């Protein structure tokens, strides 16, 4: 059974997602036992970046639709193009800080498993009641698409086909299944929540799952008042040994830095050295 990570990246005018995916891939090479990572993109990948990716896969089935706010409309395609039997899907703006080999071991008993718990940098479970009102009010599961696992299986395929339907008909689906605190834009998390509900897969949100990450959205750090930017609020450092401390607290496993300028030249160079042993 082949195993690997996968990211879908589409550059925008503001954000170089390919650069972020490159940093993520370096962190995987620096920390993981399973180091295969593929990228799904139609953007140009600089030659220097290409060597860290196992496969570079074009986004298939492009139509003339207008890109959505967070370019979520292609995410359902991941299942159909992954080269792996077992896949962990990630967002590009993440870094691995430690080996998560035991996650694979836990996930092998599942066909589909979503992360449902994110923590702040202090280690406290994030209170979603402000940012996930729609999920709570409509009694939906609360998955993070940014971190999930699937195995090539009927069950996972059914979910992804349902997700395709929800993404392509999101306004109608939101109206039917997420009408409280109606969200007037497509987010893949809400679409995935509805797809899980339609599939009857609430159990895919396993509370015992080890799939967790540190979520650095400034608004969920438990600060009052919430600042716009976490990097200007607390100190952080990334050492040459790959240890990341934020607010003097060492971070573990998977770090979702959110703010695009976090990956600077210094971090890239340290990651490159670590990835090359």
């Amino acid at each position, binding site marked *: 059974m082949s195993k690997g990570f996968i990211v879908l990246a589409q550059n925008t005018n503001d954000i170089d997602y390919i650069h972020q995916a490159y940093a993520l891939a370096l962190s995987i090479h620096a920390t993981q036992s399973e180091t295969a990572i593929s990228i799904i993109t139609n953007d140009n990948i600089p030659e220097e970046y290409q060597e860290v990716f196992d496969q570079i896969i074009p986004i298939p089935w492009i139509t003339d639709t207008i890109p959505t706010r967070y370019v979520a409309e292609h995410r359902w395609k991941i299942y159909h193009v992954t080269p792996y039997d077992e896949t962990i899907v990630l967002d590009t703006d993440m870094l691995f800080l430690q080996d998560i080999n035991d996650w694979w071991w836990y996930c092998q008993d599942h066909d589909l498993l979503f992360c449902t718990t994110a923590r702040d940098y*202090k*280690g406290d479970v994030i209170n979603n009641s402000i940012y996930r009102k729609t999920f709570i009010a409509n009694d939906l599961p609360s998955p993070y698409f940014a971190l999930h696992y699937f195995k090539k299986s009927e069950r996972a395929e059914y979910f992804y086909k349902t997700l395709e339907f929800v993404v392509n008909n999101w306004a109608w689906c939101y109206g039917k299944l997420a009408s409280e605190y109606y969200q007037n834009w497509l987010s893949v998390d809400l679409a995935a929540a509805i797809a899980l509900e339609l599939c009857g897969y609430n159990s895919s949100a396993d509370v015992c799952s080890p799939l967790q990450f540190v979520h650095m959205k400034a608004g969920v750090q*438990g*600060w*009052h008042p919430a600042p716009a930017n976490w990097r200007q*609020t*607390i*100190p952080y450092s990334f050492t040459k040994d790959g240890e990341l*401390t934020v*607010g*003097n*607290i*060492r971070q*573990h496993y998977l770090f979702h830095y959110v703010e695009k300028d976090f990956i600077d030249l210094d971090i890239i160079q340290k990651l490159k050295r670590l990835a090359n042993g």
Partner: protein
Amino acid sequence: MTTGALIFAQNTIGIDYVKLALFSAKQIKKHLGIPVSLATDSQAWLEFYPEHTEVFDKIIPIVGNTTQQKKFYDGTLAYQTAEWKNLTRNQAYDITPYSRTLVIDSDYIINSTTLIKALNNTYSFQIFRKSFDLAGWRDTSPFDRINQYSVPFYWGTVFIFEKTASTRSLFDLIEYIKLNWEFFRIIYKIDSPTFRNDFAFSIAIHIMNGMTEGDFAQELPGLMTYVLDRDILVKMKEDKIQFLVEKAHYPGEYTLVSTNSTDVHVMNKQSLSRFIDGGYGV
């Protein structure tokens, strides 16, 4: 191996800590049955309390010239800004006559046998992390973390340590933090320039844990029950203590609260002092 308690008492113009320490020591001996030593820079005051020779196992002289200023409340309506000498706590490792030591503030009243379990286990360092405010309504978040941006809060009020290489490192680290307090308070985003043992212990434990959650410090059993200096100790009889705790939104009004067989940190030292003198703290 010897086990005993150590109380620090450094008198100031406003507060007779030696008197409080004498009272606290009697409570320790009654409930925990261990010898108690006094670390003090105020030995001359002991002659006012002849019973000290029976209460204290050893008197350990310390030098503590450095003072800070702090606002001490006595109930919700009265306060005075007075001297505060709290910079000697990290000497506990070097001066304790015991191999296993309970270090305790002079305003922490032992009223139960709860800490016996902690004295008899094998952990090398134990301290309170969780606490309970007897008022029930006040914001306790300042005692969850040293501030909203930073590391878990530990109470320097009561702790038990055994002399080991790792606890030696902890006390050395606390000394280092104290000497470089301006640096540490900035990087840990502490607004107040006042040095606090609670903060120094919290930062040092965090560092000893490798800058993450860890098990260097084990939690003492139970909760660190406390009343603030805005509350008043009324009286104490056998193992029961009565307090007047401040009422929400009504300064100067109080609610009567009682504890039974519970150790309590009584932060209103004036009130505790009045009770020791005359049986009532109001």
